[in-house]
Structure formats: structure tokens, C-alpha cells
């Protein structure tokens, strides 16, 4: 009978000396991708789901508007409000805000400013259409309805 027993003198422990390097690599990845949030969101944000998502190439062109019920209802009431930067604004102030945001962009890109509307699921169309009317007044007509992915059943 053939001999199957071989000399098995392989080492049983995995060398772990490279482990810190791997961990460091992961660490650097997350350090680089992390965006520390510089502003508090004052309104509720339950982002709706959609299937036909598009990704914008140039992130610098995007400015964010947050729309939803205020988290602090005692202070701001329970009606949906609009947050631009770190303060709640009324729809009439949006034109001014858009112009400020547009001035931050290089001149060639000013026409391409895109407003990402992060709207809570529970908001009705009324406030949204008010905001859109103001955006039209400000001539910032590219709007992105922020949404998260959904798997669709076919």
C-alpha cells in the first residue's frame, strides 16, 4: 500500500506580523473617506427610496436643502421647515441663499449649480412646491431629489 503519511511539519500559526499594516490600511481608507459633519441637521430626515438613482460627478456643484419636520418641535413648531446651511429659513430667503451658494462656485460652473433636496418622507408636496417656486425664481433649476436605493421587483 502506498504510503500517504507525509511529513507534515507545516507551521500551524499564521504569521500576524503584517496585521497592523492591514489594519492601518483600512484605517487610512476610513480616515480619508470620512466627512465629519460640520452642521447639525435640525429637521427630521427619513430619506425616501427610489430605483432610478443617478450620481452626480461634480460634488462641488451640489448645495443641500433639508426639508422636514423640525426635531425641536417646542422651538420651531411641527410644520415642515427648510434648512439651508445650519439655520432654518423661510422660503422667501431661499433666493438669497442660492445666490450666496452660487457665488462660492467658480464662474464657469455657476449655471450648473445643483440643489440636492433632502426631503423627509412625511412631508407633503405643498412646502416642496413652494421651495421649487423659489428655486425657479433664483434660476437654480437643477434639482436632485435625494433618495436611497431600492431593489425593484420585476
Amino acid at each position, binding site marked *: 500500500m502506498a504510503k500517504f503519511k507525509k511529513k507534515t511539519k507545516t507551521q500551524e500559526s499564521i504569521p*500576524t506580523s503584517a*496585521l*497592523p499594516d492591514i*489594519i*492601518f490600511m*483600512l*484605517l487610512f481608507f*476610513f*480616515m480619508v*473617506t*470620512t*466627512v*465629519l*459633519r460640520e452642521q447639525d441637521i435640525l429637521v427630521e430626515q427619513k430619506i*425616501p427610496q*427610489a*430605483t*432610478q*438613482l*443617478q*450620481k*452626480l*460627478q461634480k*460634488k462641488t456643484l*451640489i448645495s443641500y436643502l433639508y426639508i422636514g419636520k423640525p426635531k425641536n418641535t417646542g422651538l420651531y413648531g411641527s*410644520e415642515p421647515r427648510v434648512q439651508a446651511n445650519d439655520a432654518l429659513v423661510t422660503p422667501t430667503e431661499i433666493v438669497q441663499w442660492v445666490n450666496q451658494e452660487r457665488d462660492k462656485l467658480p464662474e464657469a460652473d455657476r449655471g450648473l449649480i*445643483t440643489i*440636492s*433636496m433632502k*426631503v*423627509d*418622507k*412625511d*412631508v*407633503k*408636496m*405643498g412646502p*416642496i*412646491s413652494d421651495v*421649487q*417656486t423659489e*428655486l*425657479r*425664481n433664483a*434660476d437654480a*433649476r*437643477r*434639482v*436632485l*431629489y*435625494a*433618495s*436611497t*436605493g431600492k431593489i*425593484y421587483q420585476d
Partner: protein
Amino acid sequence: MAKSKSRMSQEVNAGSMADIAFLLLIFFLVTTTIASDKGILNILPPKLDPNVPPPDIKKNERNIFNVLINANDDLLVEGEYRRSAEGLDKEFKDFILNFGAPDEEAAALFNTLPASLQGQALRRPESSDHPKEAVISIKTNRGTSYEVFLEVFDLAKKAYFDIYAERVGLTADEYRALTGDDEASKALQDKGKEGIPMAISIAEPDKIGGN
């Protein structure tokens, strides 16, 4: 002469390095929010000049696919009551590709389409004449919830992207991922869109049922 007893070992003990790195890693894992700039792009119509009366657009009723969503989130699709938006994407697609009464240009367009899309042309007289004329109109109330509106808008976009993608032989996901940065992807994008404009009209909500 007194001699220091033991030589300090020259190496720094690196055994706990992994632990330190792990700790930092977990910190960043927890604080990271990978910014998601994904969403559905919409181009709003330009502001109306109050001195210029809005253009009087004469369009045949059959070229407009009406979707009304009321404050109870019920749908009225082409005059027919619905509870949910399910299956609407298929109907949008049928409507766009109907080719009921194509003019010369549209007939030429029809001939460029792949056979799978040509097969979807139902040529019903009561539906759209050809894709250039077809408009999907979505109208809401002020009390309509955003979620339902977005669902319908999403389905309308899906119908168009499905058509574009099928034309260039990609899946809809691949087509949407085209960036248009380089020549090849731009060419594909244009080829998909050519002659079939994405005409989704969002009417100003009326005042019923909201604030």
C-alpha cells in the same frame, strides 16, 4: 565601576500596535457617513415672465398621459382610479412607444429602434402619436405626500431609462451609470436619447387638501 545592570532592549514592543490601530479604525468606522449624493435629477422649468403670457400649447389629449395624485395619495391614471402606482412603469413605456400616428421623422426613428422595442409599439389610436409628442404629466395636490409623488416620478424615469438602455443594448442600471465624461459613454448616452426626449411634466400642485 558600576555598570548599568541590563541593556534595555533596543526594540519598541509593537505587539499592541494592532490594538491601537483597531481602536482608531473602529472610531472612524462609527463616525463615517459615506456621503451619498444619489438621487433623481429633475430640471425645473424656467421662471415665467409676468409680462409674457404663458405659451398656449395645443396638444392632443391622446399625447398626454395624465397622472393625478390627490391628497389621500390615491391615483387617477388617465381617468381611471388606482390605489397604488404598481405597474405604472409598463404603462408609461407602452404610452411612449405607442407610435399611433407617426410622421415621417418618427417613422424613420421607428426604423432605427431595435426589434424588441419595435415589438412594443401597440399603435393604438387613443394613445400617443410618437415619442416626440408624448408627454407624461404628473399633477399633485399640496397635500399629496412626497413619497408617493417620488414613486410615480421614479417610475416615469424608469420607463424612459429602460427604453434608452434597450436601444443601446445595456441594462437600465448600466445606462444610468454612464457618466458622459469620455467620448464613448457620451456617444452611448446620446444614442439612447436621440429622438426620444424625456418629457415628464410636473404641474404646479393645486391648493386642495394641504396648507
